[in-house]
């Protein structure tokens, strides 16, 4: 194995924890570091939609300087780490911690757990695995293994009010109780949003991804939805998603309007408007 970095501290960080605890968020704080080559891996995404794994997409979109790698590239990278490289490996809740292939690597093992479990006296599978415990979101770790559903949405653009309804319904349990939802959705103004819900935390979080507006045909960049819950009604959920996506005709119409709008907005920036004075006491 090659030298990991000049200081000798391992450049590999394994991060585990229950769904919704804040693993990707915790890793994100290190991803703006421009002094090291940065790598991010979310192993075992394993299905045919693994390219649409939301954490990978989110890290790729938010931190363009980070190299997002997949399982097949992992071994090669870990054997030949570039100088000063920092590798963050996010371990999904569905993986068996004791059997992780990375366990034997010289690495930092961080478990993000609910605050009450972060105390040294508490005992859990995280304690026996990790060499570092971090207090994450104040949520209940699920007792039984929940179901995990991933839906690829690449190319789909959503009608905004429909998206709001469907997110309210899914997170409200209309298709089975949900403990975690994360997704990347394309909207007709050419923007993409990262959407995040954790059962036990308030509200649904919308984050605009700072990407180039996609206003010419269907977006080619990847998007998708992941839902973690119990007895999920996949077919009904898929029908609702389908009914909320724009047809080619509508999309073309919206994109034409938005292109004109942004063009006009640029050219009239200097015009001033007289605002109506209105008082509502």
């Amino acid at each position, binding site marked *: 194995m090659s030298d990991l970095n000049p200081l000798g501290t391992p450049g590999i960080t394994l991060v585990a924890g229950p769904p919704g605890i804040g693993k990707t968020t915790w890793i994100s704080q290190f991803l703006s570091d421009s002094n090291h080559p940065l790598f991010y891996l979310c192993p075992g995404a394993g299905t045919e939609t693994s390219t649409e794994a939301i954490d990978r997409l989110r890290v790729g979109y938010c931190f363009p300087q980070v190299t997002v790698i997949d399982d097949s590239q992992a071994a090669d990278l870990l054997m030949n780490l570039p100088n000063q490289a920092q590798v963050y490996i996010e371990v999904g809740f569905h993986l068996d911690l004791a059997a992780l292939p990375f366990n034997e690597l010289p690495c930092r093992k961080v478990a993000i757990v609910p605050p009450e479990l972060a105390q040294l006296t508490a005992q859990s599978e995280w304690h026996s695995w990790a060499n570092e415990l971090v207090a994450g979101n104040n949520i209940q770790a699920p007792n039984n293994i929940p179901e995990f559903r991933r839906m690829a949405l690449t190319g789909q653009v959503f*009608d905004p*009010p*429909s998206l*709001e*309804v*469907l997110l309210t*319904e899914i997170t*409200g349990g*209309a298709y089975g109780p949900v403990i975690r939802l994360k997704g990347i959705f394309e909207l007709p103004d050419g923007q993409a949003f990262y959407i995040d819900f954790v059962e036990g935390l308030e509200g649904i979080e919308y984050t605009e991804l700072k990407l180039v507006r996609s206003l010419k045909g269907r977006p080619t960049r990847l998007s998708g939805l992941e839902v973690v819950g119990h007895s999920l009604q996949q077919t*009904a959920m898929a029908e*609702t998603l389908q*009914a*909320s996506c*724009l047809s080619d005709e*509508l999309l073309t119409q919206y994109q034409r309007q938005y292109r004109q709008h942004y063009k006009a907005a640029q050219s009239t920036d200097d015009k001033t408007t007289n605002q109506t004075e209105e008082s509502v006491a």
Partner: protein
Amino acid sequence: MKLAVISCIHGNIEALDAVLADIDTQKAEEIYCLGDLVGYGPYPNEVVEKIRSRGIPSCQGCWDEDIVDGLNACECSYPSQLAEYRGHLAHEWTDKEIHPEVREYLATLPITLKKDNLCFVHGSPNSQHEYLLPSMDGFAALERVLATDADVLFCGHTHVPYERKLENAALSVKVNAVESSETEQQFQVPLKRIINAGSVGEPRHGRPNATYIIYDTDAAQVTLREVEYDYEKTCQAIIDKGLPPIFAWRLAKGMEFAELADDPTHVCER
């Protein structure tokens, strides 16, 4: 005299029966209905038969209109593409289910009903599709009442009940025209009211309970009534009769199946 005003029953016979029983305990002498007898719910024929057999005068709602004339509301009357998709599913289901004589009866319903200084409409005097929300601009709301020549305008369609008093309105108009000299006029408007009856069969106030209102014509007093009923029966019937199960979920949550349009005062020209 005490009047009961009900609206937006949407084929929910369980809720209607509970509300009619509650009206009896309130000793209302007359009942008025603001339309949307059908749509979304599992018992459109039963609801219409009950309204007819009780001799309750009713306006025509937008759903009643669609069942009579075919689905001709334009997509802009739907708040979202998803609501439109589901609205179409509900319309097709209701259209198949409904008896011919029920359809004929719905066709006879008037757009407005009047009694003394009271006027009854489904959405607004302009349109069965217009939402008179409590947040609507006060002057615009006042215009809706004045357009009817009434002092009290009863409406539904939003599925959330409220009473709104519009008092001490004053406005002035100054005219410059080529053919005449400048004129200025002041206008004062005495107290007017908008009373929204909420929804019997598809409430949207966050609880599953049915809502309606009691109006005392002598005291000009409004009571917003909230009535519990066995909504789980309706939810089960929605699923058993082949309506989309999501309707049952939304009913149990006190959420309307269709949310409000973006621009609630938008009136389509089609």
